[in-house]
């Protein structure tokens, strides 16, 4: 980018994304061109799970389980995981706060699932995955911060790490405070260290501090990031409140 920027290289072995009405790579490549909020109401299909495991999954957890299922191919395929979400399962926290305000007993289930890493906890139990799990929330920088954390973990551990980012619709009560668009979508990136030359194409994520300014909304960031990662000759370029981000393929001279 320039002399003031910091960067990290990583490889992308696989990616999967889900939003209402969109699940295949073809759907997403078409969306990258089109942009706009993903539309639809349906919930992600997790019928591959036993009913007793499905029942505690809210709409966001169902998306996460769906994309993880498509990214981890067999039962022994375990990897460290990073969960990134700006708001997490905000509807659950809101319902707990409502119970408190009304002097009602809190739902033990909602309470137990109200922490930011609960979805990865449920996922690790379901898949008997004892690898580290990390949860990230970083405002409008959440998506690139999740990728950065995952790329760092892959570089340090020299093995594949999985990022899963998800947002769900936020309760009406909070809409007033969040004028930006809030997508309902989920993205999983299977990231490998740059040294693993068989793993897939090499990318560079770079960022630098910039003067405060108008940030890109989450939908625009998702679109930019996917443009840089999966569109041929694509390059992602966006800014948040105080940072400019860039994501592009690295072409190594033969």
């Amino acid at each position, binding site marked *: 980018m320039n002399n003031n920027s910091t960067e990290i290289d990583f490889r992308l072995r696989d990616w999967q994304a889900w939003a209402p009405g969109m699940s295949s790579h073809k759907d997403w490549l078409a969306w990258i061109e089109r942009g706009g909020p993903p539309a639809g109401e349906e919930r992600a299909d997790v019928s591959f799970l036993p*009913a*007793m495991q*499905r*029942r*505690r999954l809210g709409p966001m957890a169902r998306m996460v389980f769906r994309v993880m299922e498509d990214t981890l191919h067999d039962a022994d395929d375990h990897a460290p995981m990073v969960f990134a979400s700006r708001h997490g399962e905000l509807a659950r926290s809101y319902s707990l706060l409502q119970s408190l305000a009304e002097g*009602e*007993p*809190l*739902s*033990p*289930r909602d309470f*137990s699932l109200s922490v930011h890493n609960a979805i990865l906890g449920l996922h690790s139990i379901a898949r008997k995955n004892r690898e580290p799990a990390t949860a990230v929330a970083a405002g409008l920088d959440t998506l690139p911060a999740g990728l950065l954390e995952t790329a760092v973990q892959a570089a340090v551990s020299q093995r594949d790490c999985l990022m899963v980012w998800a947002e769900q619709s936020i309760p009406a009560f909070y809409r007033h405070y969040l004028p930006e668009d809030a997508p309902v979508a989920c993205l999983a990136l299977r990231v490998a260290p740059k040294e693993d030359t068989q793993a897939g194409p090499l990318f560079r994520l770079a960022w630098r501090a910039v003067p405060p300014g108008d940030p890109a909304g989450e939908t625009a960031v998702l679109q930019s990031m996917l443009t840089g990662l999966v569109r041929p000759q694509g390059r992602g370029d966006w800014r948040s409140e105080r940072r400019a981000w860039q994501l592009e393929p690295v072409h190594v001279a033969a």
Partner: protein
Amino acid sequence: MSGLKTELRELLIEALELEDIAVEDIDPQAPLFGDGLGLDSIDALEIGVAVQKKYNVRLDATSEDTREHFYSIENLARFIESARANGAG
């Protein structure tokens, strides 16, 4: 009592979001936890809250009898009946 057992099974399905499970699938005599329905400790707490809300009957988490009351739908129904008869709540 049989009406109460059906009601409790409905309450269980609703409170625990047991999708794919119908009232008939829950044997009133079968253990709710472990080998039976397969519920866990979080479910036990959730049932406790649901029973408290609906029947105004408190289950004491520290009491030895609680394990017995929670064993099956039948035991839970018997406990609620007797709590009501004793004028608790």
